């Protein structure tokens, strides 16, 4: 028997609470896992296999994860938007010999020995559940551009930041096949409450209505998800006790606007990555985090080298998947997050990704820092900085801007916003021009889509 409990065992421990995982299309009663499964007829033959999980519906994904953890050797969590070529390469890297697919569509043409359909509602288990191994969870990294790498976690590394908690009904805007969403799924499954999920292109208005009807108390999403909530009319449908932002830099503008909309809620912005795991959560309502956290010898150790935050903890991924993959950590066990931090007084601020830097005549600009200055303007809801090629300086900073409350730009808008930027930013960081847009695209992972 493995030392750590598996998911089915965590679900069984909390039985009798009438807990469900709900999407728009399915309601999954967790107590039924005692006697039923989404993979019923196939479960025995999936034992110790490396399984690619390719389902569209998030309730099915949740059911298959509960069924497979502690039973399959590996589970590869594939986000629903992955195209065939990416699925094939993930299956190859994970040496997959089985796949689990939606029961109501045909199996994707990936060469594996066994294709098992996942069905809801759950069907009766033929033999009682047992655990046979500690499953490797294979997750894609959440880069905002470029192909994702695959990393290996275990249930133990994934649950390192999750402590026993009182009754909490969770909801998330994330897909549970991404690290941020998976954290919420695991909190819910190991806790006492229910979980409400979205997916399949459901609008933010519909999500908020369902989450409100489910009386959720705890909810998480990226700052981009939350800006969509702030821009919708349905924000008042939920009344959470706790609100969590993660996956992108939370600036004071979004934190302040959310606290104004939900005055009762405790608001935290968490810092985590698929590679480094959950690092910390900040709940003082301000962007950044206390510099003193770098010196602490808590379960998570942090240090800054070459500008970026490095993290060592047992929540970090074990390694990258693949024969020629680079090491995930340095010789001391620290994972380089690639997130650049800047110390201002007694606080550290995230200023952007090392890979996203715009080089303006040799001066390096982090798009996120410029966006924070733009977003701080009272008329701006959200912005996205991009580089424009320049024959003089190599590149120039430009930005797309969405105004608050559907306001239309007038002749003075650009001038006023840029004038405010000039008081906060050095000249090379001030956008050379703005484009006013009505909306900004968000990736399937819930992050502001950036140009590759």
């Amino acid at each position, binding site marked *: 028997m493995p030392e750590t409990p598996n998911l089915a065992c965590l679900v069984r421990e909390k039985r009798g609470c009438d807990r469900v995982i709900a999407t728009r299309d399915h309601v999954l009663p967790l107590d039924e896992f005692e006697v039923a499964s989404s993979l019923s007829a196939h479960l025995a033959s999936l034992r110790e296999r490396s399984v690619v999980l390719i389902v569209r519906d998030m309730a099915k994904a949740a059911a298959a994860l509960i069924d497979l953890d502690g039973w399959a050797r590996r589970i590869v969590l594939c986000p629903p938007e992955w195209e065939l070529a990416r699925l094939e390469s993930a299956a190859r890297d994970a040496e997959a010999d089985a796949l689990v697919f939606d029961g109501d569509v045909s199996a994707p043409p990936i060469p594996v020995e066994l294709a098992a359909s996942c069905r809801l509602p759950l069907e009766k288990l033929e033999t009682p559940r047992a655990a046979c191994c500690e499953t490797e969870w294979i997750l894609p990294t959440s880069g905002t551009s470029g192909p994702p790498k695959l990393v290996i976690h275990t249930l133990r590394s994934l649950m390192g930041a999750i402590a026993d908690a009182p009754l909490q009904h969770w909801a998330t805007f994330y897909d549970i096949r991404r690290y941020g969403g998976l954290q919420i799924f695991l909190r819910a499954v190991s806790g006492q409450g229910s979980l409400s999920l979205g997916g399949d292109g459901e609008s933010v208005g519909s999500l908020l209505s369902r989450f409100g009807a489910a009386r959720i108390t705890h909810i998480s999403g990226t700052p981009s998800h939350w800006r969509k909530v702030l821009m919708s009319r349905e924000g008042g449908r939920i009344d959470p006790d706790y609100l969590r932002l993660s996956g992108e830099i939370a600036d004071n503008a979004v934190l302040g606007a959310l606290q104004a909309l939900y005055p009762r809620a405790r608001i935290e912005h968490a810092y985590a990555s698929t590679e480094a795991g959950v690092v910390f959560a900040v709940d003082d309502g301000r962007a950044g985090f206390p510099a003193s956290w770098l010196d602490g010898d808590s379960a998570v150790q942090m240090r800054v080298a070459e500008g970026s935050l490095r993290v060592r903890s047992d929540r970090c991924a074990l390694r990258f998947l693949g024969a020629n993959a680079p090491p995930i950590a340095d010789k001391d066990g620290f994972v380089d997050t690639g997130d650049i931090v800047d110390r201002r007084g007694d606080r550290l601020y995230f200023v952007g990704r090392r890979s996203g830097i715009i080089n303006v005549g040799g001066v390096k600009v982090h798009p996120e820092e410029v966006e924070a200055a733009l977003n701080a303007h009272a008329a701006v809801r959200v912005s996205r900085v991009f580089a424009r090629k*320049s024959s*003089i300086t190599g590149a120039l900073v430009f930005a797309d801007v969405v105004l608050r409350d559907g306001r239309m730009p007038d002749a003075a808008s650009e001038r006023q916003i840029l004038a405010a930027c000039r008081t906060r930013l050095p000249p090379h960081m001030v956008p050379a021009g703005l484009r006013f847009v009505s909306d900004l695209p968000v990736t399937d992972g819930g992050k502001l889509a950036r140009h590759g």
Partner: protein
Amino acid sequence: MSLSETILDEIRSVAANQNKTLAPLTDDLSLNDSGLDSLCFAILVARLEDITNRDPLGSAEGARFPRTIGEFVALYEGALA
């Protein structure tokens, strides 16, 4: 407005935005002495590209890099001719 007036207008506007003091704009004023730094020029060239759809400084035609305001204007006039 003529092309040359448009360009001089944009030069003044960029300089004002960037808090630069411009020397009097004459044809033979050296660009290096104009008061504009390379960031100002980059912004100016981007703005003129938006207006004229041309970036004569970015084209690989082997054009001589302008040294004076007059040459700078002439470069755009040539590109649009």
